[in-house]
């Protein structure tokens, strides 16, 4: 198939960034993720789609050990980042999350100034030596977050005073500030209007030049627009994983087909 985007998006062969093997997740007795095997590529936008409760967010949260904080959550199998097991007891989850950043559904800026929202991560991870360097990181992150021009004159203003779309881009800038390698986004646009959504999507396209982006979205059109690869989850199984153009024109599994065309299976 001559999918132009596929050609455009496939120019550089990509390495595997995150690899999951036989991944199982239980919440108590509830088997939420079943035998998931997936390779997430470097410098690629990967979308997870599927109906509510299919496990896509759960799986996303496994990728930076956010499920560690849930008491009855049990994870089996291996997940590696650059070949290293992220569930190895020697791995510090805080360090891991600096490398694997996360943006949530609802914008959640700290109740601090715009400047401090961005500076928080670099400070605790000791990424800046002195004020000048920190200023530089803040500016660079806000620029990469495509929000610098809107906030540069009011860096001392509270982050919570921004509009929803601006807050979300601020959160993305905050996630970038620790120089992560992977950015996980859980429904980053569901609380945003179409213009703010387009800005975030444009930002995602920019970010993919440097990062692996994994995005969970309920908007199939958004998955189609922003991602190179799409994974369809259903009842805890990874049903189909492939090039986005293929998934949306000629899915191989009838369950994928039913879901993306809006049919009852």
């Amino acid at each position, binding site marked *: 198939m001559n999918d132009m985007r596929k050609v455009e998006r496939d120019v550089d062969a990509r390495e595997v960034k995150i690899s999951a093997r036989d991944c199982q997740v239980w919440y108590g007795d509830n088997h939420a993720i079943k035998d998931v095997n997936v390779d997430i590529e470097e410098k690629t936008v990967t979308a997870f789609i599927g109906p509510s409760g299919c496990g896509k967010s759960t799986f996303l949260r496994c990728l930076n050990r956010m499920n560690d904080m849930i008491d009855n959550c049990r994870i089996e199998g291996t997940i590696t980042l650059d070949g290293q097991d992220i569930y190895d007891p020697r791995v510090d989850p805080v360090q891991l999350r600096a490398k694997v950043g996360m943006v949530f559904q609802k914008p959640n800026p700290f109740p601090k100034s715009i400047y401090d929202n961005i500076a928080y991560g670099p400070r605790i991870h000791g990424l800046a030596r002195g004020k000048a360097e920190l200023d530089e990181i803040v500016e660079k992150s806000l620029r990469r977050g495509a929000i610098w021009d809107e906030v540069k004159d009011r860096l001392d203003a509270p982050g919570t005073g921004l509009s929803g779309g601006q807050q979300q881009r601020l959160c993305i800038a905050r996630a970038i500030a620790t120089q992560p390698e992977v950015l996980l986004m859980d429904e980053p646009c569901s609380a945003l209007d179409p213009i703010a959504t387009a800005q975030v999507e444009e930002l995602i396209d920019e970010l993919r030049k440097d990062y692996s982006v994994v995005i969970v979205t309920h908007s199939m059109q958004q998955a189609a627009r922003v991602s190179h690869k799409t994974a369809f989850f259903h009842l805890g199984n990874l049903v189909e994983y492939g090039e986005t153009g293929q998934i*949306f024109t*000629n899915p191989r599994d009838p369950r994928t087909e039913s879901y*993306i065309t*809006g*049919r009852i299976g």
Partner: protein
Amino acid sequence: MSDQGHHIVASYDRDLEAIQAMIMKMGGLVEAAILDAATSLERRDEELAESVRRGDKAIDELEEQVNEECARVIALRSPTATDLRTVLTVMKISGNLERVGDYAKNLAKRTSVLVQMQPVEGAAGAIRRMGKTVEGMLKDALDAYIQRDAELAQDVRMRDHEVDQMYNALFREFLTFMMEDPRNITACMHLHFIAKNIERMGDHVTAIAEQVIYLSTGVMPEDDRPKGDRTPFQNAEVDE
């Protein structure tokens, strides 16, 4: 028309069914146009030829409607997977049908000229058989569409070869007639265009069959099919 189960949004099903019904209506009109045009030539029936010419307008209008409806479905529904392929193939097939309709209309126009002339022996019957073959292929291609039957579509694709061979035979026959008696030239030129146009109809029907294969399997057929039109490489001397 789909074996996929229904959309959660029922009006989506109705939209897709509506554009497919339009294609079927167009297909019916085009099939009739081919048969009527060929019959009008054989029976030297100017009135029937005139009705084929007038009827082409309805086919053209349907094509317009199909395009508008498809644009609407794309804009409002963002179709994906089978739904997307349905909309894409409907648009292409309507374009092919419109072309076949135009060729039938052209056949009818030339009939009006040909009835003024001495008939060329055996030509009208051969043309009618050729028209009948293409009409049969079109009927099967449309049935294959309705049933999402890639095998039947593949069969149609392979049958285009027969039409090409019929055209080859007529091409040589017309050359012979023209060489025998220059007074046959005008009629044979018209008849040749008619035969060529029917051969082109076969190509459009083949394209429709390929769309059916794409619709039902998700991939365009890549294998070569037999090609039978050898006339580009022929000259008048071969018969001497």
